[in-house]
């Protein structure tokens, strides 16, 4: 167990009055008994006990501090005061520390009790330093207590005024965009070379009369034609082939999906 375990809940009943410094050394020990709720935890109590040794924190006697703390807790117990667990934990740890300090040196474990005591002392010093610093800080000339700022300042206001920026070009372009956006939409379909379904049917019928073998549909298309006309002719010829098949004039065959499409004259 180390002193690190001595991190405990803050005493809720901590005095609400402004902290004006450590307890004065003239306090009688008797006053201590009634103040258990006033401590901010065991370290706080230890610090006050240490301060009662009336020596610099650097040269306090840890052994006598331990004795005082344990005695204090025992007395409080005797008076049946409710003692928070953290005080008891600290008491137990200090009792352990004390026995270790009194044991012969060569039976020590690591860390040595001297090291533990030194750590405790360093902690007390640091807490003591901060407590003194807090007291000195609170004693400074504070605004609203010792010094005052102006009671009724007029206040500074900055009113922002927008200066809008726009120029001729942006204005005119803006109008152009409105006009463009709202212009009626007219669709013009460009004239394209097409093969109508009717002419495709005629063409296909005529060509089927010439041959009896399966022919790929592409061979029915006009060769060397404009590619756009080729596309139209393919589409129209396909529809024409379907139409002829429906009329029982042609047969259509396709061996695999997306494969070439073959057409031949229907054989009744």
């Amino acid at each position: 167990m180390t002193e690190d375990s001595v991190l405990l809940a803050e005493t809720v009943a901590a005095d609400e009055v402004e902290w004006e410094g450590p307890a004065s050394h003239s306090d009688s020990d008797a006053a201590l008994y009634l103040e258990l709720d006033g401590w901010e935890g065991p370290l706080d109590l230890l610090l006050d006990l240490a301060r009662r040794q009336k020596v610099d924190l650097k040269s306090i006697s840890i052994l006598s501090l331990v004795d005082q703390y344990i005695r204090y807790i025992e007395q409080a117990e005797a008076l049946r005061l409710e003692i928070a667990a953290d005080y008891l934990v600290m008491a137990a740890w200090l009792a352990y520390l004390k026995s270790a300090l009194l044991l012969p040196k060569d039976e020590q474990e690591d860390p040595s009790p001297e090291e533990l005591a030194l750590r405790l002392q360093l902690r007390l010093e640091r807490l003591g330093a901060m407590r003194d610093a807090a007291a000195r800080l609170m004693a400074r000339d504070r605004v609203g207590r010792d010094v005052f700022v102006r009671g009724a300042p007029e206040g500074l206001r900055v009113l922002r005024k927008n200066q809008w920026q726009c120029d001729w070009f942006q204005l005119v372009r803006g109008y152009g965009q409105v006009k463009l956006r709202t212009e009626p939409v007219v669709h013009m379909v460009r004239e394209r070379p097409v093969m109508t379904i009717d002419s495709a049917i005629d063409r296909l019928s005529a060509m089927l009369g010439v041959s009896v073998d399966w022919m790929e549909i592409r061979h029915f298309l006009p060769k060397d034609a404009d590619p756009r006309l080729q596309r139209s002719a393919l589409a129209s010829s396909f529809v024409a082939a379907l139409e002829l098949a429906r009329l029982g004039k042609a047969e259509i065959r396709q061996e695999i999906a997306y494969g070439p499409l073959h057409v031949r004259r229907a054989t009744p």
Partner: protein
Amino acid sequence: MSHEMDDLLRAVEATLFASEEPLSAEQISAHLEGADVREALRELETHYAGRGIALVERGRRWHFQTAPDLAHLLRREKEQLRRLSRAATEVLAIIAYHEPVSRAEIEAIRGVQTSAGTLDVLMEAGWVRAAGRREVPGRPVIYATTNDFLSHFGLASRKDLPGIDELKAAGLLDPVEDAFDDMMEQQAAEAEEKREEGAKTGSMDEMGVAGEEDWGDQASALEKPDQSV
């Protein structure tokens, strides 16, 4: 001189300074264990005459205030340059080409609803004014441009605005990427915000430089209109 200032004078000065309201000589005196403060008040009044702070007596009660001629420091106006949004620019253009025009007509021409703030901005800028009401049911307010509008855009009259044919010839009726425009606008708005923050931290320099850049952007847009449309 101030180091030998007498204690009463210092006390009166401090009391008046810290007080939340004007105090009569009697009130100050009561506060300072009955001392006679009249002379101290006169002395302070003289001392502060011509400074940035003045001690003044109003209705037999005294208080410190900022010197009246420096009142403009308390309510400072700061101008900031702001670029007109695309929507506002379009509305302005529609008013300029079609005035006088009601809001419903503007919306009909733009093909989108116009937020209430847009017309406010144009009126704040001083370019648009309410020009009466249209004598139709609902009597809508109609808007027109102002003389400030003409001078700001360097126009002798509204007739100077280019016609549709001219716009077409100048390529101004070619489609532009609206999304790109919006993005640029957003960037500008963000830059503006940053600038405002800069102003809050008190840097006047940033304000100045940012203003310059604003104009620079516009100038380059004017120089290369073909690239931006």
